[in-house]
Protein backbone atom coordinates (compact mmCIF):
# COMPACT_ATOMS: atom_id res chain seq x y z
CA UNK A 1 0.00 0.00 0.00
CA UNK A 2 1.25 3.46 -0.89
CA UNK A 3 1.98 5.41 2.28
CA UNK A 4 3.18 8.63 0.70
CA UNK A 5 -0.02 10.14 -0.55
CA UNK A 6 1.08 13.62 -1.36
CA UNK A 7 4.67 14.69 -1.97
CA UNK A 8 3.89 18.23 -0.81
CA UNK A 9 2.58 17.02 2.59
CA UNK A 10 5.63 14.78 2.86
CA UNK A 11 7.93 17.68 2.17
CA UNK A 12 6.18 19.91 4.71
CA UNK A 13 6.25 17.19 7.40
CA UNK A 14 9.92 16.54 6.68
CA UNK A 15 10.65 20.24 6.92
CA UNK A 16 8.83 20.50 10.26
CA UNK A 17 10.66 17.47 11.64
CA UNK A 18 13.96 18.93 10.50
CA UNK A 19 13.12 22.24 12.15
CA UNK A 20 12.27 20.54 15.44
CA UNK A 21 15.51 18.57 15.29
CA UNK A 22 17.43 21.77 14.58
CA UNK A 23 15.76 23.52 17.55
CA UNK A 24 16.47 20.55 19.82
CA UNK A 25 20.12 20.56 18.77
CA UNK A 26 20.33 24.29 19.39
CA UNK A 27 18.63 24.29 22.80
CA UNK A 28 19.59 20.78 23.86
CA UNK A 29 22.55 21.67 26.09
CA UNK A 30 20.40 24.13 28.04
CA UNK A 31 17.31 22.01 28.54
CA UNK A 32 16.85 19.43 31.29
CA UNK A 33 16.77 15.83 30.18
CA UNK A 34 13.24 14.55 30.01
CA UNK A 35 11.10 12.35 27.86
CA UNK A 36 9.58 14.19 24.93
CA UNK A 37 6.11 13.37 26.28
CA UNK A 38 6.94 15.36 29.42
CA UNK A 39 7.82 18.36 27.28
CA UNK A 40 4.60 17.91 25.32
CA UNK A 41 2.52 17.73 28.50
CA UNK A 42 4.30 20.73 29.98
CA UNK A 43 3.67 22.76 26.82
CA UNK A 44 0.00 21.76 26.92
CA UNK A 45 -0.41 22.80 30.56
CA UNK A 46 1.48 26.06 30.09
CA UNK A 47 -0.73 26.85 27.11
CA UNK A 48 -3.81 26.18 29.27
CA UNK A 49 -2.42 28.44 32.01
CA UNK A 50 -1.60 31.29 29.63
CA UNK A 51 -4.88 31.15 27.70
CA UNK A 52 -6.92 30.81 30.90
CA UNK A 53 -5.04 33.60 32.64
CA UNK A 54 -5.47 35.98 29.73
CA UNK A 55 -9.17 35.13 29.56
CA UNK A 56 -9.51 35.62 33.32
CA UNK A 57 -8.00 39.09 33.35
CA UNK A 58 -9.17 40.40 29.97
CA UNK A 59 -12.70 39.06 29.44
CA UNK A 60 -15.34 41.75 29.79
CA UNK A 61 -17.93 39.14 30.72
CA UNK A 62 -17.22 37.90 34.23
CA UNK A 63 -18.66 34.44 33.57
CA UNK A 64 -16.15 34.05 30.75
CA UNK A 65 -13.42 35.27 33.10
CA UNK A 66 -14.47 32.52 35.52
CA UNK A 67 -14.23 29.92 32.75
CA UNK A 68 -10.70 31.19 32.10
CA UNK A 69 -10.00 30.70 35.79
CA UNK A 70 -11.22 27.09 35.52
CA UNK A 71 -8.91 26.53 32.53
CA UNK A 72 -5.98 27.87 34.55
CA UNK A 73 -6.86 25.64 37.51
CA UNK A 74 -6.88 22.63 35.18
CA UNK A 75 -3.47 23.61 33.81
CA UNK A 76 -2.06 23.91 37.33
CA UNK A 77 -3.57 20.52 38.23
CA UNK A 78 -1.68 19.09 35.26
CA UNK A 79 1.50 20.69 36.56
CA UNK A 80 0.95 18.96 39.90
CA UNK A 81 0.62 15.67 38.02
CA UNK A 82 3.93 16.37 36.24
CA UNK A 83 5.51 17.05 39.64
CA UNK A 84 4.46 13.55 40.79
CA UNK A 85 1.91 14.76 43.34
CA UNK A 86 -1.41 13.29 42.15
CA UNK A 87 -3.05 13.88 45.54
CA UNK A 88 -2.54 17.62 45.15
CA UNK A 89 -3.88 17.53 41.60
CA UNK A 90 -7.01 15.84 42.93
CA UNK A 91 -7.30 18.40 45.73
CA UNK A 92 -6.83 21.21 43.19
CA UNK A 93 -9.75 19.90 41.18
CA UNK A 94 -11.86 19.33 44.30
CA UNK A 95 -11.20 22.61 46.13
CA UNK A 96 -10.51 25.13 43.39
CA UNK A 97 -12.63 23.91 40.51
CA UNK A 98 -15.31 22.40 42.72
CA UNK A 99 -15.67 24.90 45.54
CA UNK A 100 -14.00 28.22 44.83
CA UNK A 101 -15.33 28.54 41.28
CA UNK A 102 -18.84 27.93 42.60
CA UNK A 103 -18.28 30.70 45.16
CA UNK A 104 -17.06 33.06 42.43
CA UNK A 105 -20.08 32.13 40.34
CA UNK A 106 -22.36 32.96 43.28
CA UNK A 107 -20.60 36.29 43.66
CA UNK A 108 -21.08 37.08 39.97
CA UNK A 109 -24.73 36.11 39.96
CA UNK A 110 -25.67 37.80 43.26
CA UNK A 111 -24.27 41.11 42.06
CA UNK A 112 -25.88 40.95 38.59
CA UNK A 113 -22.48 41.30 37.03
CA UNK A 114 -22.52 38.68 34.30
CA UNK A 115 -22.58 40.41 30.94
CA UNK A 116 -24.00 43.91 31.23
CA UNK A 117 -22.58 44.75 34.62
CA UNK A 118 -20.02 47.30 35.64
CA UNK A 119 -17.18 45.20 34.29
CA UNK A 120 -18.41 45.35 30.71
CA UNK A 121 -16.87 48.76 30.14
CA UNK A 122 -13.14 48.99 29.54
CA UNK A 123 -11.15 50.29 32.50
CA UNK A 124 -9.65 53.78 32.16
CA UNK A 125 -6.49 54.10 30.12
CA UNK A 126 -4.33 54.84 33.15
CA UNK A 127 -5.46 51.61 34.83
CA UNK A 128 -4.61 49.71 31.64
CA UNK A 129 -1.13 51.25 31.67
CA UNK A 130 -0.58 50.32 35.30
CA UNK A 131 -1.91 46.84 34.55
CA UNK A 132 0.59 46.38 31.73
CA UNK A 133 3.34 47.64 34.02
CA UNK A 134 2.35 45.22 36.78
CA UNK A 135 2.27 42.39 34.23
CA UNK A 136 5.80 43.17 33.07
CA UNK A 137 7.39 44.10 36.40
CA UNK A 138 7.35 40.65 38.13
CA UNK A 139 8.49 38.97 34.91
CA UNK A 140 11.31 41.48 34.42
CA UNK A 141 12.48 41.37 38.04
CA UNK A 142 12.07 37.73 39.04
CA UNK A 143 12.34 36.07 35.62
CA UNK A 144 16.07 36.69 35.09
CA UNK A 145 16.72 35.79 38.73
CA UNK A 146 14.97 32.44 38.31
CA UNK A 147 16.72 31.69 35.03
CA UNK A 148 20.18 32.67 36.28
CA UNK A 149 20.09 31.27 39.81
CA UNK A 150 17.55 28.48 39.45
CA UNK A 151 20.00 26.57 37.29
CA UNK A 152 22.58 26.48 40.06
CA UNK A 153 20.29 24.59 42.43
CA UNK A 154 20.81 20.87 42.55
CA UNK A 155 17.68 19.60 40.93
CA UNK A 156 16.30 16.11 41.22
CA UNK A 157 13.58 14.28 39.40
CA UNK A 158 10.33 14.40 41.43
CA UNK A 159 9.37 11.07 42.94
CA UNK A 160 5.95 10.06 44.15
CA UNK A 161 5.25 10.50 47.88
CA UNK A 162 2.84 7.99 49.39
CA UNK A 163 -0.35 9.72 50.48
CA UNK A 164 -0.01 7.98 53.84
CA UNK A 165 3.08 10.09 54.54
CA UNK A 166 1.01 13.23 54.08
CA UNK A 167 -1.58 11.97 56.54
CA UNK A 168 1.10 11.03 59.07
CA UNK A 169 2.68 14.46 58.66
CA UNK A 170 -0.65 16.14 59.31
CA UNK A 171 -1.13 14.23 62.55
CA UNK A 172 2.42 14.31 63.93
CA UNK A 173 4.83 16.93 62.67
CA UNK A 174 2.45 19.54 61.30
CA UNK A 175 -0.44 19.09 63.70
CA UNK A 176 -0.37 22.74 64.82
CA UNK A 177 -0.88 24.25 61.33
CA UNK A 178 -3.55 21.62 60.72
CA UNK A 179 -5.52 22.66 63.81
CA UNK A 180 -4.95 26.34 63.06
CA UNK A 181 -6.29 26.02 59.55
CA UNK A 182 -9.43 24.34 60.85
CA UNK A 183 -9.93 27.25 63.27
CA UNK A 184 -9.37 29.73 60.42
CA UNK A 185 -11.94 27.93 58.30
CA UNK A 186 -14.44 27.84 61.17
CA UNK A 187 -14.01 31.54 61.90
CA UNK A 188 -14.27 32.42 58.21
CA UNK A 189 -17.50 30.42 57.84
CA UNK A 190 -19.00 31.94 60.99
CA UNK A 191 -18.01 35.43 59.88
CA UNK A 192 -19.43 34.91 56.41
CA UNK A 193 -22.75 33.66 57.80
CA UNK A 194 -22.89 36.54 60.28
CA UNK A 195 -22.17 39.16 57.61
CA UNK A 196 -24.55 37.73 55.05
CA UNK A 197 -27.51 37.18 57.42
CA UNK A 198 -27.27 40.34 59.45
CA UNK A 199 -26.90 42.51 56.41
CA UNK A 200 -26.29 46.21 56.22
CA UNK A 201 -29.18 48.23 54.86
CA UNK A 202 -28.41 51.60 53.27
CA UNK A 203 -28.11 54.18 56.04
CA UNK A 204 -30.50 57.09 56.23
CA UNK A 205 -29.08 60.23 54.71
CA UNK A 206 -27.03 58.32 52.18
CA UNK A 207 -27.46 59.51 48.68
CA UNK A 208 -28.53 56.56 46.61
Amino acid sequence: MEQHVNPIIDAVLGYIAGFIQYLAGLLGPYLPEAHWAAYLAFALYVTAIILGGLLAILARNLVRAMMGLVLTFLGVAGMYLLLASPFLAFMQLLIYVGAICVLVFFAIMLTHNSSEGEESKLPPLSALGYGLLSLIAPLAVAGPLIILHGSKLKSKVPVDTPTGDLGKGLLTEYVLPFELISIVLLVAMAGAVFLAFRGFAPLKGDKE
Partner: protein
Amino acid sequence: MTALTFFLLASLLLLAFGLAGLITRRTLVGMLISVELMLNGAGLSIVAACKSTEASDSLGQLATLFVMGLAAAEATLVLAMILVVQRRFGKVLSSEITTLR
Protein backbone atom coordinates in the same frame (compact mmCIF):
# COMPACT_ATOMS: atom_id res chain seq x y z
CA MET B 1 17.96 25.53 32.99
CA THR B 2 16.55 22.73 35.10
CA ALA B 3 13.01 21.44 35.32
CA LEU B 4 12.56 23.58 38.45
CA THR B 5 13.21 26.70 36.35
CA PHE B 6 10.32 25.90 34.04
CA PHE B 7 7.87 25.32 36.87
CA LEU B 8 8.97 28.49 38.67
CA LEU B 9 8.55 30.49 35.46
CA ALA B 10 5.02 29.13 35.08
CA SER B 11 4.14 30.18 38.62
CA LEU B 12 5.74 33.58 38.03
CA LEU B 13 3.47 33.93 35.01
CA LEU B 14 0.46 33.22 37.24
CA LEU B 15 1.63 35.89 39.70
CA ALA B 16 2.02 38.45 36.89
CA PHE B 17 -1.44 37.68 35.47
CA GLY B 18 -3.01 37.97 38.91
CA LEU B 19 -1.30 41.27 39.66
CA ALA B 20 -2.31 42.77 36.31
CA GLY B 21 -5.90 41.61 36.78
CA LEU B 22 -6.01 42.97 40.33
CA ILE B 23 -5.09 46.41 39.03
CA THR B 24 -7.20 46.55 35.87
CA ARG B 25 -10.41 45.00 37.22
CA ARG B 26 -13.06 47.51 38.27
CA THR B 27 -15.27 45.30 40.45
CA LEU B 28 -14.61 43.31 43.60
CA VAL B 29 -15.62 40.09 41.85
CA GLY B 30 -12.97 40.53 39.16
CA MET B 31 -10.40 41.27 41.85
CA LEU B 32 -11.38 38.05 43.66
CA ILE B 33 -10.71 36.10 40.45
CA SER B 34 -7.26 37.71 40.14
CA VAL B 35 -6.35 36.92 43.75
CA GLU B 36 -7.22 33.27 43.14
CA LEU B 37 -4.80 33.26 40.19
CA MET B 38 -2.00 34.58 42.41
CA LEU B 39 -2.68 32.06 45.20
CA ASN B 40 -2.54 29.26 42.63
CA GLY B 41 0.88 30.47 41.49
CA ALA B 42 2.10 30.44 45.09
CA GLY B 43 0.99 26.84 45.55
CA LEU B 44 2.61 25.74 42.31
CA SER B 45 5.93 27.33 43.21
CA ILE B 46 5.95 25.75 46.69
CA VAL B 47 5.32 22.28 45.32
CA ALA B 48 7.86 22.70 42.52
CA ALA B 49 10.53 23.93 44.90
CA CYS B 50 10.00 21.12 47.40
CA LYS B 51 9.58 18.33 44.86
CA SER B 52 12.61 19.00 42.71
CA THR B 53 15.15 19.89 45.40
CA GLU B 54 16.30 18.07 48.50
CA ALA B 55 13.60 19.63 50.69
CA SER B 56 11.00 17.43 52.32
CA ASP B 57 8.32 16.29 49.89
CA SER B 58 5.47 16.09 52.34
CA LEU B 59 6.27 19.56 53.70
CA GLY B 60 5.73 21.11 50.26
CA GLN B 61 2.52 19.23 49.57
CA LEU B 62 1.08 20.04 53.00
CA ALA B 63 2.02 23.72 52.65
CA THR B 64 0.14 23.84 49.36
CA LEU B 65 -2.83 22.12 50.99
CA PHE B 66 -2.82 24.85 53.64
CA VAL B 67 -2.65 27.50 50.91
CA MET B 68 -5.71 25.89 49.31
CA GLY B 69 -7.55 25.93 52.64
CA LEU B 70 -6.70 29.58 53.16
CA ALA B 71 -7.86 30.35 49.63
CA ALA B 72 -11.19 28.67 50.36
CA ALA B 73 -11.61 30.65 53.60
CA GLU B 74 -10.69 33.86 51.82
CA ALA B 75 -13.14 33.23 48.98
CA THR B 76 -15.95 32.59 51.50
CA LEU B 77 -15.26 35.79 53.37
CA VAL B 78 -14.92 37.84 50.20
CA LEU B 79 -18.25 36.49 48.97
CA ALA B 80 -19.91 37.68 52.19
CA MET B 81 -18.20 41.07 51.92
CA ILE B 82 -19.32 41.42 48.31
CA LEU B 83 -22.89 40.70 49.40
CA VAL B 84 -22.71 43.36 52.13
CA VAL B 85 -21.17 45.94 49.80
CA GLN B 86 -23.79 45.19 47.17
CA ARG B 87 -26.59 45.78 49.68
CA ARG B 88 -24.98 48.86 51.14
CA PHE B 89 -23.79 50.64 47.98
CA GLY B 90 -25.86 49.01 45.26
CA LYS B 91 -22.76 48.22 43.21
CA VAL B 92 -19.42 46.53 43.73
CA LEU B 93 -17.16 48.97 41.90
CA SER B 94 -13.97 49.36 43.88
CA SER B 95 -13.89 53.09 43.10
CA GLU B 96 -17.35 53.65 44.63
CA ILE B 97 -16.66 52.17 48.05
CA THR B 98 -15.38 55.24 49.81
CA THR B 99 -16.99 55.32 53.25
CA LEU B 100 -16.13 53.15 56.21
CA ARG B 101 -19.47 53.60 57.94
